[in-house]
């Protein structure tokens, strides 16, 4: 029973990890840009959530998910159009890496400067303590809500990309930017919106993460690491792969903590290492030619 409990909780946590990864994978897949500042945006969203929650004490922070996600959509759109679009077509592959790396340092220190290094979290009120009893199992309502939201976002994203005209334009641009331009598609605009979607996802994940664990302005890096591991394990460009990778890492973390309460993310990284060692193309990815 303990194991089943761990498995369910691990999957709920994994849904969150999957969201961290999908936002990153979307950007990497569409514009070949590795956004190193992704983790900082996750933390900034959590900060904004905490701030808004302080201003509106009676409100359950779950209601803030959509407004904060909307804010970060526009943040993503803006950052991409003002900053990142200048390097996405750079012939030197280092340019985008250096820019987003530098940007992450700036954001981290801005957060430290403005809010200090205090450990924070988002309190989800009564919801955090509620649980559903199934037989002898006790499953927290908040983790279930988290998992439900993660799956909802996955499905919506998948539908947008595979079924809509805009999704078609995203796939075409990802495939060949120059030929997409010949169709009348403006790649810069596609990139802006994709970065907006990516950061909106990061914002939702960041706030949900802040409801289950504490964070500081320096938490971005460990979030980024998990997001990377999700992308690599899931295989580039595979949404369902990312979700599955998230589940795997979430379960690995909780099982690891059961054996070794001080392990933190160590078992997550160990599982990642094992996958890279034995299946470098990722669990669902295709082998690169």
């Amino acid at each position, binding site marked *: 029973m303990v194991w089943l409990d761990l498995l369910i909780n691990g999957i709920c946590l994994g849904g969150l990890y999957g969201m961290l990864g999908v936002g990153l994978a979307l950007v990497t897949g569409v514009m070949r840009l590795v956004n190193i500042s992704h983790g900082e945006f996750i933390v900034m969203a959590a900060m904004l959530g905490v701030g808004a929650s302080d201003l509106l004490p009676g409100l359950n922070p779950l209601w803030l998910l959509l407004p904060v996600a909307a804010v970060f959509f526009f943040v993503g759109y803006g950052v991409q159009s003002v900053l990142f679009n200048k390097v996405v077509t750079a012939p030197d592959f280092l340019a985008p890496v250096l820019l987003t790396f530098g940007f992450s340092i700036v954001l981290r220190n801005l957060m430290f400067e403005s809010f200090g290094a205090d450990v924070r979290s988002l309190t989800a009120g009564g919801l955090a303590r509620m649980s559903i009893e199934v037989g002898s199992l006790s499953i927290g309502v908040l983790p279930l809500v988290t998992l439900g939201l993660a799956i909802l976002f996955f499905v919506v994203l998948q539908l947008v990309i595979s079924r809509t*005209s805009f999704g*078609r*334009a995203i*796939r*075409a641009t*990802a*495939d*060949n930017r*120059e*030929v*997409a*331009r*010949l*169709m*009348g*598609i*403006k*790649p810069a605009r596609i990139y802006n919106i994709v970065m907006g979607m990516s950061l909106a996802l990061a914002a939702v994940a960041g706030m949900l993460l802040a409801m289950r664990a504490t964070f500081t302005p320096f938490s971005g890096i460990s979030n980024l690491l998990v997001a990377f591991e999700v992308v690599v394990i899931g295989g580039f460009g595979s949404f369902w792969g990312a979700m599955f990778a998230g589940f795997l890492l979430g379960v690995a973390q909780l099982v690891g903590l059961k054996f070794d309460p001080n392990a933190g993310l160590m078992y997550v990284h160990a599982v990642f290492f094992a996958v890279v060692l034995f299946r470098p193309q990722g669990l669902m990815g295709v082998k690169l030619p």
Partner: protein
Amino acid sequence: MKLLEVRGLSVFYGDLQALFDVSVEVEAAGTVALIGANGAGKTTFLKSVAGLLASKRGEIVFAGHAIGGLPAEQIAGLGLALVPEGRLLFQNLTIEENLIIGGYSGRKGYWTLARIYELFPVLAERKQAMPAILSGGQQQMVAIGRALMANPKLLLADEISQGLAPVVIDQIYRSFPTIRAEGTSIILVEQEVKRAAAASDHTYCLLKGRVTLEGASRGLSFDALSRAYFGS
């Protein structure tokens, strides 16, 4: 009336000059053949007209608009479509999606999905397939159909017979009269001189980035063509 007027076009790749003072004109509803050996600058010419190459000098007027400084996505909206060399279909879009996205700029006209399937019936049977599993000829039909979906005034076709069997090439060339009849002019870039000359009213020959011969396609002398094509 002239649909396209290119005057004194010079194009550079860094320090390297690929086109020297090239002038080309296309009449409305006309077909122009652009021939030349490998590296003569044919593809460079098409890419710069379509707006994919920014480093250029000279004047390009298309349907009354000076398009020399415009980006490709804007030129596409004015009714200029390029069938790129090597087809370059979107590999993660189905055949039908490849065609639909050709109409992204929203230009209305004769060409619709149904009309493309009428022109190339084999595509209707494979519309849910991914491009990679189609034969080269079918892929070329998708590439042409994708360009037509924009209802272009001018279609730039870059080496559409490359790597295809003669019978398939014939089949594709047979679609040109229909395309022209619906008011689309064509610039045909080919290495195969005879076929290109037969399908066009006017021929330009490029050699090492310069126009070496120009004239009505009917009555081009083989000797003059050969000198213009290979140099002497």
